[in-house]
């Protein structure tokens, strides 16, 4: 074997402390070292050219470059090896600048240390093997789960980029939580008006043809991995054809079965076949099988008969369908919910009339809601006084220790909207902290501060607050010793992940944090990536966030999918990965338990593990864990590390 050594003086940076001639002399005594080249600046254009020419002329089998940190220039010199026709993984760098010359006082000791380090590198590089990047065919299409702001933005953007998108939504309508709101913070924009163009684009726009929307559907099974996920989606029957229905609502008018409407927080009722709320898109009702009187054995086809578009539009016998798709990337945009305020004793949630959580109140404010937008008590009269309690379950170690971030802003929106509708109503805000970041949020806050009917009261902990029925009707809100009357109480509970996150996490193997939000690969660097490669996060499924941030996150997740998966381009797989020698694997699965990326698959028939190189990040933890020594860490093998160690210790 012929090992070429290249020593960079780095001007005086290295030369001041390490004597190149002494090193060269010592190195020549190592086996298989026919030459040592001393270069002044090997990373300069001239230096690289000189390096490449020398490699071509000398044709060494392995190369050692003693220069700066491999974190600076390993890739540079690997590229030189490639240019010279060598495999780039046949080089080892020795960091004699940052880790020897610059930190060692005595030049003799620095030179001695450099010689040891080069001896280690020579031993190591002898063990190194040529490695190749593998290419993998990938599917550029995507699955988006959740059709709220983040999911819709992601789906539409992907479609605009020419990707096929399957958009899966659990409810019968798109738009997520905000489509149920009347006006939004910070600028009191009409929510349906704001979202409608986006929803219109999604359903009927230029790129709608590449978006497959599956409402009332949930992910059921996932196999495969980044670039080639095979997904199964189960869609519940709507019983109303989205294709043929014109949304006239004749069926709802004749339906004899009634139930409470969950989308109005049970505050209004609906027919078995009906819309979730007026204006819900897609503009078609859905039939609730368990409410339809046919489920009780009665014969009824009133809806079918009344439909002006023909009896084929409503299919009373429709059953679940399972859709299978192949996608390269999956975007999770499953959104958020609210903490159940009835879990906090003494606030009257669920036990006292006229105590509402924020979602119920949003529906009350909505012109499509149960009261048509009127703010009224259960008795049907406008409240003369309203208490708004912030931080319900947020910033609270007994409930959710985090700040939910959006509540103060919508609480002050409530203040504005209540004042607009009921100018004489007294409004009291009970808050722990006030959080209104950014350049826009202050206006609603200032409005509340300057509203002569508003009072802001600070409380220390939720245990200091109590809501009880008043002796002469109404409610009494106490904060420590001070008690005030209120005819309506609005609670602003902590924002929590939407239900079903545990199921999705298990299906996709993605991690969740202790609060149940999906965990980011890195909170700052890769906040739109999940722990599983190719599964991205968008919106409030990862933490409480407002619509603006959710939309941005939607775009961010699309960025990953577009950058990573391109039509006609294969996926390049880095060769520094682990590999199981199946003949030595005993099937103990220890490797699987330590892999942070779930990159190790287990063949139960063969009783063997194998590493999926697409998912492997090359950390080598499994290599160390394997009791049989059956796993090789390419480019960081035991033999290579041991050889380096022996070399420096000689």
């Amino acid at each position, binding site marked *: 074997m012929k090992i070429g050594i290249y020593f960079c003086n780095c001007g005086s940076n290295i030369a001041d402390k390490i004597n190149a001639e002494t090193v060269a002399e010592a190195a020549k005594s190592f086996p298989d070292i026919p030459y040592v080249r001393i270069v002044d600046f090997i990373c300069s254009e001239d230096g690289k050219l000189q390096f490449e020419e020398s490699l071509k002329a000398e044709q060494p089998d392995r190369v050692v470059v003693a220069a700066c940190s491999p*974190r600076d220039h390993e890739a540079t010199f690997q590229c030189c090896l490639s240019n010279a026709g060598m495999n780039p993984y046949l080089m080892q760098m020795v*960091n004699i600048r940052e880790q020897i010359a610059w*930190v060692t006082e005595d030049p003799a000791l620095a030179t001695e240390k450099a010689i*040891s380090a080069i001896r280690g590198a020579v031993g190591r590089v002898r063990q190194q093997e040529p490695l190749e990047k593998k290419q993998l065919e990938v599917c550029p299409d995507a699955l988006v789960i959740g059709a709220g702001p983040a999911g819709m933005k992601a789906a539409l953007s992907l479609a605009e980029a020419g990707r096929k998108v399957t958009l899966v939504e659990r409810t019968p309508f798109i738009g997520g939580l905000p489509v149920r709101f009347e006006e939004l913070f910070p600028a009191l924009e009409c929510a349906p008006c704001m979202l409608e163009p986006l929803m219109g684009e999604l359903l009927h726009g230029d790129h709608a043809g590449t978006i497959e929307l599956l409402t009332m559907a949930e992910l059921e099974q996932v196999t495969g991995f980044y670039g080639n996920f095979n997904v199964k989606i189960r869609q519940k029957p709507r019983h109303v054809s989205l294709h043929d229905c014109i949304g006239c609502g004749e069926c709802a008018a004749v339906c004899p079965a009634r139930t409470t409407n969950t989308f109005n927080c049970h505050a209004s009722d609906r027919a078995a076949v009906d819309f979730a709320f007026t204006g819900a898109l897609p503009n078609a009702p859905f039939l609730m099988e368990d409410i339809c009187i046919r489920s009780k054995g009665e014969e009824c086809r009133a809806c079918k008969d009344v439909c002006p578009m023909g009896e084929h539009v409503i299919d009373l016998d429709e059953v679940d369908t399972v859709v299978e798709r192949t996608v390269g990337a999956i975007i999770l945009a499953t959104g958020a919910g609210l903490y159940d305020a009835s879990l906090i004793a003494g606030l009257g949630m669920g036990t006292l009339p006229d105590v509402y959580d924020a979602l119920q109140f949003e529906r009350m404010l909505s012109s499509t809601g149960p009261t048509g937008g009127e703010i009224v008590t259960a008795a049907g009269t406008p409240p003369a006084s309203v208490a708004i309690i912030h931080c319900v379950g947020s910033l609270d170690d007994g409930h959710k220790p985090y700040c939910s971030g959006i509540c103060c802003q919508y609480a002050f929106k409530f203040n504005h909207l209540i004042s607009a509708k009921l100018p004489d109503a007294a409004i009291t805000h009970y808050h722990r902290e006030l959080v209104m970041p950014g350049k826009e949020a202050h206006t609603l806050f200032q409005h509340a501060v300057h509203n002569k009917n508003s009072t802001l009261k600070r409380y220390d902990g939720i245990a200091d607050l109590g809501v009880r029925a008043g002796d002469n009707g109404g409610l009494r809100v106490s904060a420590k010793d001070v008690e005030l009357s209120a005819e309506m109480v609005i609670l602003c509970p902590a924002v929590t992940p939407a239900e079903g996150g545990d199921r999705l996490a298990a299906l996709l193997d993605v991690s969740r944090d202790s609060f149940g939000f999906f965990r980011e690969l890195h909170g700052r660097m890769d906040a739109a990536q999940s722990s599983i490669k190719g599964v991205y996060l968008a919106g409030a499924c990862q933490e409480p966030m407002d619509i603006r941030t959710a939309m941005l996150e939607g775009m961010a997740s699309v960025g990953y999918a577009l950058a990573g998966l391109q039509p006609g381009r294969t996926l390049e797989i880095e060769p520094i990965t682990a590999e199981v020698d199946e003949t030595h694997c005993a099937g103990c699965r220890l490797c699987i338990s*330590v892999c942070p990326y779930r990159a190790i698959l287990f063949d139960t028939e063969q009783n063997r593990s194998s590493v999926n190189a697409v998912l492997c990040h090359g950390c080598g933890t499994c290599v160390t864990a394997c009791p049989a020594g059956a796993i090789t860490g390419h480019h960081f093998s035991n033999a290579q*590390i041991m050889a380096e*160690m022996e070399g420096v*210790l000689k």
Partner: protein
Amino acid sequence: MTTDNSFEPKIIGFLCNWCSYAGADKAGGAQLIYPPNVHVIRVMCSGRVDPQFILSALVKGADGVIILACHPGDCHYKEGNCRALQRHTLLNLMLEQLGVEKERCRLDYVSAGEGDKFSRVIHEMVDTVRALGPLELEDVGAYNIRPDVITN
């Protein structure tokens, strides 16, 4: 234990690529002088450091071994440093049983920005091992180093 003033220990340092190796580079960039006794071996993750590397280093002439990892919670590979901690804890129990002072095998955390901490930790480690004196192993066979197992 003999204390020889002229004794200069040989120490192997396993540094993870992302935090500690970058921290060592940072110390270099700041030209923080530290003793030359620690020979750095770069690994991608502290979770890659096999306890057998450490035993092998001690058998083959190192007087001490230091493993430097990302801070807990900051591991580039999420939790490799936790594996390193688990293995280090167990290995130290074994080293003590074998009569090797546990101070000869140190695990610490150095981030990419902590050049000064890197320099301090190296100073401390060299001083500690220098005070302990050369490692004298009576029965190398007791370590059961199996080169045949560590060859892949």
